[in-house]
C-alpha cells in the first residue's frame, strides 16, 4: 500500500478550482441565512418630525433569511422548530418552514411635542430588534 499512500499524498489536498471562502459560505454560513438587517429611517420621511423632536434617526432593524435545518445550536430554537422543519420537508409542505423572527429587543427614548403644547420625554420598551431566532 505504500505506493498508493505516497501517490495519494502527492495529490493536491483540494481540487484546484476549490475556494475556501466559497466552502465557508456554502456550508458553514449558507447564503441569506436568518440574520439581523438594518433599516435606518428618519422621522421626517414619515412627516412626523413636527411632533417627534428626537431622535432624528431611528433604526428598528429587522430579521430576514432562511432558517437552516440545524437551528438548535445557532439560534437557541426549541426542539419544536426542528420538528416543524421535518414535517415541512417529509410530511406536508403546506406546513410552513420555521420563520426568522426577532428574539430580543432594546428600548427607545423619544422626545415628543404633545397636542396641548407640553413636551414629553418617554422611554418605550421593545422598539429595536437586537437578536434573531427561528421559530
Amino acid at each position: 500500500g505504500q505506493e498508493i499512500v505516497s501517490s495519494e499524498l502527492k495529490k493536491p489536498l483540494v481540487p484546484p478550482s476549490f475556494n475556501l471562502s466559497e466552502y465557508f459560505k456554502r456550508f458553514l454560513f449558507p447564503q441569506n441565512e436568518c440574520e439581523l438587517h438594518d433599516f435606518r429611517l428618519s422621522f421626517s420621511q414619515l412627516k412626523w418630525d413636527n411632533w417627534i423632536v428626537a431622535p432624528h434617526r431611528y433604526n428598528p432593524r429587522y430579521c430576514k433569511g432562511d432558517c437552516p435545518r440545524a437551528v438548535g445550536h445557532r439560534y437557541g430554537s426549541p426542539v419544536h422548530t426542528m420538528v416543524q422543519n421535518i414535517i415541512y420537508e417529509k410530511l406536508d409542505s403546506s406546513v410552513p418552514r420555521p420563520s426568522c423572527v426577532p428574539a430580543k429587543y432594546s428600548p427607545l427614548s423619544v422626545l415628543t411635542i404633545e397636542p396641548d403644547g407640553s413636551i414629553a420625554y418617554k422611554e418605550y420598551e421593545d422598539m429595536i430588534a437586537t437578536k434573531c431566532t427561528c421559530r
Partner: protein
Amino acid sequence: CQASRGEAQIAASAELEPEAEPWSLLHPLDGRDRSGLLPPLFKILSDEREGIPRLQPDTRALRYMKRLYKAYATKEGIPKSNRSHLYNTVRLFTSCVQHKQVPVDQVPGIFPSLDLLFNLDRVSVLEHLLKSILLYTFKDSISFPSAVKCECDLVIKEPKSSSEAFPRAPNSFTFEFRKKHKWIELDVTTLLQPLVASNERSIHMSVNFTCVNDQLQPPSAQESPFNMSLLVPPSLLLYLNDTSAQAYHYKRRPSQSPDHKAHLSPYPTGQEAAQGRRSLRHRR
C-alpha cells in the same frame, strides 16, 4: 389659556369625528388598562389623515428638554445604562399665567405675585409621580454682579374638584442666584404628590419672590435681573414612572443603586448590622 384653548379645539374636533383624536384612547383617564393599545408613537401610523394640529411649545422649554434628552439617551435614542433614576417619563408643562398682581410702586427685588395654572391632561393614570420641579429661567442669559438670595412663597390653590375653596398655607423656598445662572429649579414634589396621585387634571398655584443681595438689601435697580420683565413664568416638570406595558422599565443592578431605599439588599448593611448587634446586647 393657550393650552386649554388648544385642548378645546382638539376636543371639539374629536366630538365631530370621534376617531380624529387617537391620543385620548392611548391614555385612558378612567384607569382601565387597555394593554393592547399601541404606544402613542405608532397610533398615528394607523391613522391615515394628516397630523393633528398641535400647539407649539415654548422655545426655552424645548431647549431644556433637548438637553435632558441628550443626558438620558444616545444619538440613536437608546436610553443610557449609566443612569441613577427610575423614571421613564418626563413631562414639561408651560404655565397659563392667570394674572400678575403688579403693585403700584414696584420695588426692585420684590416680584408681584403670579397666578399659575398647569393643565395635566397628558398625565395618564398609569404614570406615577416620582419628582416635580418648578423651572424658572430668564428671557436673556444674564450674569449677576454678586450672589443674590431669594425667597419664594408658593400657595397651592385647592383643586376645583375638592369641596374646600380656601388656599393652603404658603410654602417657602429659599435659594441663591449665582453668577451665570440659566435655570432655577424649585423642588415641589411634596406639594404636588397628593394632587397628581388623586389624578387632578389641573394645578392652580400662586407664587411670589422677594430677593436680597449679599448685603441683605433689596438689589438696586442697576442689578438688572431683578425687574420682573426678565424672569419668565415657570414651567412645571413632572418626573414620572409609566407603569404601562409598552413603557421601558429599567432593571437596576444592585451595584448601581445609589440610594438604599431602592436597593433592598438581602443582607443588612454595615450600620444596620451594628444596630442589630446593639439591640441583641441590649435585650440580653
